[in-house]
């Protein structure tokens, strides 16, 4: 297995990201957001502001409303009440700034598309209606693939890559979209430690480029060290803040309830959840 990570990330496609990444600027602003399908609200009254260029983990048990929150931020689900502001604009007006990286299980990996085909999809808006991508678009897609260390895999069918590489394809597609905000849905489920580390190296490069990352995960072993802030969700906001302030047994117990076991052992706290995807 080879992990080619470039030390100097290609800066070609970072323009869109930098425009919106003035330090301290708010990338995602949730104002008393409630959203859901039909009469039941999957999330209620969530308020939080995420600064541009930060990496925030979204944690909570199954059914906590993580996917609903993502859909509201991407602009696919209009809020039942409250609002989502993306770079100060209503979410449905700022869709270009946000890219969603789907859960591994939601992708048909046998679909007859190459890695390049998938990344080029991110450029669909630039290509325009009724047109097909040309060499310039493929060049841009290759730049995005270089940023995730996969330029040599462009011609492979997506099912032929390893699990970690497969997740990187979709990060490359999000980059090709020119998004300054990335929503990653459970990117670490089912990848080994090495692939996990590679993903974090890519995310580190993105942070340098000012890309904001909101990442849903149930793997609590990662959240205390790799993120700027944690947003803990269980239908409502349980807590939002720096990992040291939020990653505490009582807060986790409140979020996960019976899905979690907590032991105290010689000043050490062991928290176990029964999440699995």
């Amino acid at each position, binding site marked *: 297995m080879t992990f080619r990570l470039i030390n100097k990330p290609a800066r070609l496609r970072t323009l869109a990201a930098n425009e919106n990444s003035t330090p301290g600027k708010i990338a995602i602003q949730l104002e008393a957001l409630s959203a859901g399908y039909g009469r039941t609200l999957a999330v209620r009254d969530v308020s939080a502001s995420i600064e541009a260029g930060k990496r925030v983990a979204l944690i909570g048990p199954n059914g906590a409303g993580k996917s609903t929150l993502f859909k509201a931020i*991407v*602009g*696919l689900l209009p809020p039942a009440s409250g609002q989502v502001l993306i770079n100060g604009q209503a979410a449905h007006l700022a*869709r270009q700034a*946000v*890219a*969603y990286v*789907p859960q591994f299980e*939601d*992708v*048909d990996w046998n*679909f*007859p*598309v*190459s890695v390049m*085909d*998938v990344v080029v*999809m*991110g450029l*669909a*808006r630039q*290509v325009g*209606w*009724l*047109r*097909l*991508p040309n060499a310039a678009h493929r060049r841009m897609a290759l730049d995005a693939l270089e940023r995730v260390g996969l330029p040599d895999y462009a011609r492979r*069918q997506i099912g032929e890559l390893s699990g970690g590489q497969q997740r990187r394809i979709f990060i490359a*597609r999000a980059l090709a979209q020119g998004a300054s905000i990335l929503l990653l849905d459970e990117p670490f489920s089912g990848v080994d430690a090495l692939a996990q580390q590679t993903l974090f190296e890519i995310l580190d490069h993105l942070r340098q480029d000012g890309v904001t990352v909101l990442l849903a995960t149930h793997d609590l072993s990662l959240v205390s060290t790799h993120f700027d802030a944690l947003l803990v969700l269980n239908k409502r906001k349980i807590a939002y803040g720096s990992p040291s302030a939020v990653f505490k047994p009582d807060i986790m117990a409140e979020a996960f309830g019976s899905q979690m076991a907590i032991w105290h052992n010689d000043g050490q706290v062991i928290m176990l959840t029964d999440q699995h995807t």
Partner: protein
Amino acid sequence: MIEQVCTNNTLYKLICEPLSYAFMQNALLAVLMLGLVAGTIGAFVVVRGMAFMTDALGHAILPGVAIAYLSGGVHGPLLFGAGVAGSITALIIGLFTRGGKLREDTAIGIVFTGALALGLAILSLNKVTAVDLEELLVGNILAINGSDLAIIFIVGAIILLLVRAFYKELLIVSFDPVLGATLQYPVEALRYLLLLMLAMTAVIAIQAVGVILIAAMMVTPAATAYLLVRRLHLMMIVGAIICCFSGVFGVFLSWHLSVSSSAAIVLTMTVLFLIAYLLAPKRGLVWTFVRYRAASPMEIDGLAS
């Protein structure tokens, strides 16, 4: 060169003699265009898991065909009747499944059997002869005339142009509807477009293979291509080639063996699929088996170390 070929006695019997009849020429032109269209559109059917939907659309055009038949026999406005019925069926199935009210396979099961029953009722009330009924159900490509051929070419060309025009959009909503929605594509409208194209393909294929075998034209060659190549547009090209070949081969088979033309066409496709299923590189049964045999000693080593 054709003269040279046709002076050879065996080849004359096999190829040239059948070709000298106008109905054979019509039949061959029809299967070539149908193969191009069905093989292309079939790629979407296979990757989106719409085989049942396609089968249903094929059956559900019967009431339209029946009414058209009553107004003018086997050369009545069959294609027009089928077109209307197919479009209505596609829209109704789309409507029933909108917003997840019914699972799609349930909606399809209800609508297509209902439509098929309606078609049979119309035909039986009007005492249609068994021969004509058979022609509607299994088709007869050797009965295609010049005006049928014109319609097949016009409708087929429109479908091919639509696929080319909306290729990127249809690929995106088929592979990742969420991306389609974030790009603000009209995902529902594109789905209806695809359903309408399927219905129109079924309509022009009805005379070739009849109501019951239409799905084979759109599913089997595309599925064969799915086993052979790994990109959507290549799947369309390979699927179209297989579909055209099967059509031509089937028509000749039908001529020489006096077997039903639609049966010969569909059986050819089925045999080609089975060959691909066994022998396709990487995905075929033989390949998988050989790789499994080759890999297992290494895996055992890996476990031991």
